[in-house]
């Protein structure tokens, strides 16, 4: 190790898996997490927070279903409020998972292997949280199936309007959830087989035996498997970009000042990646601490994610400036008004929170010392998550609260059901994530072994000849 560190190229490309692990050690370290109780009290502390919040979600949604969506603060003129804000925010959180598993896979970024499994799980759970909002904003979620999906039915005798972006949204989000779940499960199959082979307890052996579908890891199976994984990555890449673009169409195809802009699709996608990576860092620093995974999820992984956050954060900041510039340059008085009102109107406090969290916070990642410090990145990522929530809130509330008629101006205030539902989705998200950490391999065992194999084969060459990583 000592002479490896002397090589300047090794400093640029430090090994992705430290502590000289073997295949068996990787297997042991990751599998044992699912086989034994969590090692630190923190796990139970998080559970203690998550479960009451989950209960709160149940209470709020039941109350809403029995009473009607008037229990939310939405009203004229702000017909969209926290429901759509939270929906867009949660969908955005999910995007980092797909980005890591699909786009970084296509770019052959080997550092993704230690974080992709947990990030994909995060995607699924975030999409589940997001899905609650469109489902419950119909007011009668048990009938939403007929209103949202084009299923022949005797109830309505009519079809959905496919010219509506809200309909595109249904297709985009449900496709996204389905493909993410398939991608995640396909990635899990070899690792489920590993858990099956290690299982001592017959119940465990049966469960993982069924889940792993009889996977053997034969060369012919790997051949089809690898191609399937590559194709899924290839499909998910445009999918993830399309989902947030289509979410942005909900706004962009309307004629409301502040919404009706062509910058929305790329701007929303960048924002989604930005907030998603921040959430991945928030969760991974915790999981890494609870389970002592510092040798697998190294500072290098976290630093790379910080760089992505810096890049996307800069895009988001640039988009804010562009919006303002275009509002002025268009010479459209309504457009100019809405942007002046965003910054200096009644929601100015939300606008400046957004700017501070999204534009200023990521700038600290220019400094290597800060982007390699776990406490610093943890705090900054929390700020970024808050900032991105405010971004969606600012877009929705400020464009609606002062429309073309000053007589109908108003101010949106969330009700306790709004707040409780949002807090409750955190409970759902955290509960699912903690259960995932406990029962499924949080790191892709077979992929890490592949990276380890690559590392074993290239490291002597790197040390000797100074070859590229």
């Amino acid at each position, binding site marked *: 190790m000592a002479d490896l560190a002397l090589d300047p190229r090794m400093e640029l490309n430090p090994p992705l898996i430290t502590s000289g692990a073997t295949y068996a050690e990787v297997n042991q370290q990751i599998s044992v997490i699912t086989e034994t109780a969590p090692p630190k009290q923190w796990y139970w502390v998080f559970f203690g927070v998550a479960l009451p919040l989950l209960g709160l979600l149940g209470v709020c949604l039941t109350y809403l279903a029995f009473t009607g969506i008037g229990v939310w603060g939405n009203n004229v003129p702000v017909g969209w409020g926290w429901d759509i804000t939270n929906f867009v925010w949660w969908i955005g959180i999910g995007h980092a998972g797909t980005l890591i598993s699909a786009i970084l896979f296509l770019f052959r970024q080997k550092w993704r292997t230690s974080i992709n499994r947990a990030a994909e799980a995060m995607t699924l759970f975030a999409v589940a949280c997001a899905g609650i909002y469109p489902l419950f904003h119909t007011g009668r979620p048990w009938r939403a199936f007929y209103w949202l999906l084009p299923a022949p039915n005797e109830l309505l005798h009519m079809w959905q309007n496919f010219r509506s972006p809200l309909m595109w949204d249904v297709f*985009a989000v449900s496709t996204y959830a389905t493909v993410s779940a398939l991608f995640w499960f396909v990635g899990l199959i070899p690792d489920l087989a590993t858990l099956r082979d290690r299982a001592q307890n017959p119940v465990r052996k049966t469960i993982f035996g069924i889940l792993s579908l009889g996977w053997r890891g034969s060369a*012919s199976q790997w051949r*089809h498997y690898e191609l399937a994984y590559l*194709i899924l990555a290839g499909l998910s890449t445009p999918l993830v970009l399309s989902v947030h673009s289509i979410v942005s169409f909900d706004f962009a195809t309307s004629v409301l000042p502040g919404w009706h802009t062509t910058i929305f699709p790329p701007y929303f996608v960048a924002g989604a990646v930005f907030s998603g990576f921040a959430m991945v860092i928030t969760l991974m620093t915790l999981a890494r601490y609870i389970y002592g995974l510092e040798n697998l999820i190294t500072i290098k992984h976290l630093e790379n994610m910080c760089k992505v956050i810096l890049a996307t954060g800069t895009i988001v900041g640039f988009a804010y400036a562009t919006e303002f510039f275009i509002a002025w340059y268009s010479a459209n008085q309504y457009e100019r008004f809405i942007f002046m009102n965003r910054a200096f109107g009644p929601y100015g406090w939300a606008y400046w929170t957004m700017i501070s969290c999204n534009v200023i916070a990521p700038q600290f990642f220019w400094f290597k010392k800060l982007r390699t410090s776990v406490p610093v990145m943890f705090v900054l990522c929390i700020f970024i998550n808050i900032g991105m929530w405010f971004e969606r809130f600012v877009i929705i509330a400020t464009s609606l609260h002062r429309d073309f008629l000053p007589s109908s101006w108003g101010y949106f205030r969330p009700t306790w059901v709004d707040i409780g539902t949002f807090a409750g989705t955190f409970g759902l998200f955290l509960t699912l994530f903690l259960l995932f950490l406990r029962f499924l391999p949080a790191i892709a065992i077979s992929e890490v072994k592949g990276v380890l194999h690559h590392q074993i084969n290239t490291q002597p060459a790197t040390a000797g000849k100074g070859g590229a990583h």
Partner: protein
Amino acid sequence: MATNLLARLNLPGFESESKKVKHYGVVANFDTPEDLLRAVRTARAAGFSKMEAYTPFPIHGIDEALGAPRSPLGKIVMCCGLTGLVSAVLLQWWTGAVDYPLSVAGKPLFALEPSVPIMFELSVLLSAFGAVFGMLHLNRLPTYYHAFFNYSKAEGASNDRFLLAVEVEDPKFIAEEVKTFLDSCGSRHTELVEA
């Protein structure tokens, strides 16, 4: 005479003596992917053709060494994707312009431009189904039973062992000879596995 006939039909309880104990093949156990790859190449050179390798992660170059053909999965996915594309167009045209025509703001009942998002999403959805279920079908998964699992160290294939099976269907298969051959390739544990 009668027993011979029954034996030929392979009915349970009447199998001929030689068929009573069926074998899957001889499985050898290697320490590293490189050892396995070398063994596969040696075995191919020695004329074995019905072989299967079992590894904890995909080893590049092993398909060529085993002489495996390219996976047809790409074609399956292509067909599924096109089905998704066509069904999206049909769905939107039929529901919007034929079965339930509803004029919204004077927009055309069916046009290609607003149909693109659904066309894209359904193509991706059906392609993904094609990729996953096509892969499962090609791999014959889910499977309830496979003879490979009778190998006493089969669980190593998902841990840190690299296994090579020469199957009984191989025309050159003679258990003892295969065993000696695989031992000479550096196998740590070679075993004749029952089916």
